[in-house]
């Protein structure tokens, strides 16, 4: 038995050595600082953040920004756990909760765009060009009649939170209805399902544009209305060790250089921008919208 124990001890020590040698964090290498930013998959998937991070790196060569892309709920939760230095999300009601808990500081709005209600080209519910509120009511009725379906993300993402808010605002509850399909998945998967079923759904404009050529059955039906506004905010995590650097990054997002890049992003590819910069727009209007959205319960 003795030789066994010796062998196991040697193997254990070897394993320990291996673990410890590979666990030298980036920080030890020269004087590189790592800034960890959690964000949402839909925002990250557009590629905007990597572009902005590269620009930031030009000014701050010894900073490495690492983006961790998950759902809005998870992104904010990671901030609460202390695992990230900053958060970029677009779910005002969740953001307010975490602000009040002291996890994150006051938000800095750095971009916005609109959610869109998309649906089948035939539009059985007849919602084209209506206001978002009217559209939701008509969609509900059409679904109840059996001529339409609605697909929800069902995953507490920014899009899902807004969808729930819309239902709430018009006083309707689709939960449990047979025509209300919750995918629990990402935006692109949800759009695919909507395409399959020729159903209505709420989407962010970025994902829809990117995916348009695969979605033959769907088209944008409603894209106007304050309630559809999608506000992107950046937050500093108050417990972060790199709080000053995080602040610098958030401030960079609203600098003229970054804002110009944001406004031009996607223009070439899709013929329309994916995001609107806040410089030049009414920042009061945006702040008001944020307040309204964050206090709406969903």
């Amino acid at each position, binding site marked *: *038995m003795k030789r*066994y124990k010796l062998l196991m001890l040697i*193997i*254990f020590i070897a394993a320990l050595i291996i673990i410890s040698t590979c666990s030298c964090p980036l920080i030890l290498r020269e004087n590189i600082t790592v800034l960890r930013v959690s964000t949402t998959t839909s925002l990250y*998937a557009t590629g905007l953040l990597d572009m902005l991070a590269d620009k930031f790196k030009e000014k701050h060569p010894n900073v490495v920004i690492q983006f961790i892309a998950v759902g809005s709920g998870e992104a904010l939760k990671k901030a609460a756990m202390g*695992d990230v230095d900053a958060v970029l999300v677009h779910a005002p009601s969740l953001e307010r909760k975490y602000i009040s808990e002291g996890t994150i500081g006051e938000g800095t709005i750095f971009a916005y765009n609109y959610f869109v209600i998309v649906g089948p080209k035939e539009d059985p519910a007849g919602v084209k060009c209506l206001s978002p509120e009217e559209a939701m009511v008509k969609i509900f009725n059409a679904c109840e009649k059996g001529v339409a379906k609605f697909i929800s993300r069902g995953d507490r993402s920014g899009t899902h939170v807004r969808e729930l808010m819309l239902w709430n605002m018009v006083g309707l509850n689709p939960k449990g209805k047979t025509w209300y399909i919750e995918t629990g998945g990402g935006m*692109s998967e949800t759009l695919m399902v909507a395409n399959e079923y020729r159903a209505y759904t709420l989407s962010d404009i970025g994902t829809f544009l*990117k995916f348009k050529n695969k979605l033959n059955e769907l088209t944008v039906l409603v894209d106007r209305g304050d309630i559809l506004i999608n506000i992107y905010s950046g937050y500093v995590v108050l417990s972060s060790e790199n709080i000053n650097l995080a602040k610098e990054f958030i401030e960079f997002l609203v600098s003229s250089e970054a804002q110009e890049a944001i406004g031009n992003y996607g223009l070439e590819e899709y013929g329309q921008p994916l995001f609107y910069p806040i410089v030049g727009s009414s920042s009061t209007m945006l702040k008001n919208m944020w307040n309204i959205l964050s206090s709406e319960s969903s």
Partner: protein
Amino acid sequence: MEFIFETSEIVLRSIFVSGLATVLASAWSLPLAFLLLISESKIGRILQDIFNSLVSIPTVVLGLLLYLIFSRSGPLGVFSLLYTPCIISIGQAVLITPLMISFLTSSLGKVKETVWETAIALGASKFQASITVLKEGYVQLVRSILVGFNRAIGELGVALMVGGNIRGYTRVMTTAIALEVSKGNFDLAITLGVVLLITTLAITVIVRFLGAR
């Protein structure tokens, strides 16, 4: 062109991370599986049952558990291991341990039945008999290490939860595929999936080739 470069980097990282995970897991699974084989006690049998049932643990669940442990607000957060390739290796090593032990005990078990008793009957000590069993069961050993590696490199839940899928740092094949799916780039995702399968196939073939003397 840049795509090929980035993809190669991801493939190499996957191999390295999962390879390290397999080395770690083998380091403690092999002796443990062996001890379980030669012990006749009840505890040994209970442990074997526990390991057999842990094989099916969902990777997301394990990933979440590890995340909670290594998060800055968690008990082992002081090591700052979260979102590093290292923690993925550790996580995957934990993931494949029950699988390797289960595989080892069942495949070596047959070898042990015959070879062990013969060796002891000829005068071998327990240690010598163990070495003989390992030599005779070499093929099963290699196979179980390969099984562990393939499971590690193909898992998603752990790599995603504790690695964070950070571009250029912790992005591995499986998390890259998941990202492309969420972006809607299905074609790219499938391409990457095929690359992953070819990689594992190549490694399996190479190992078998080297092993057949």
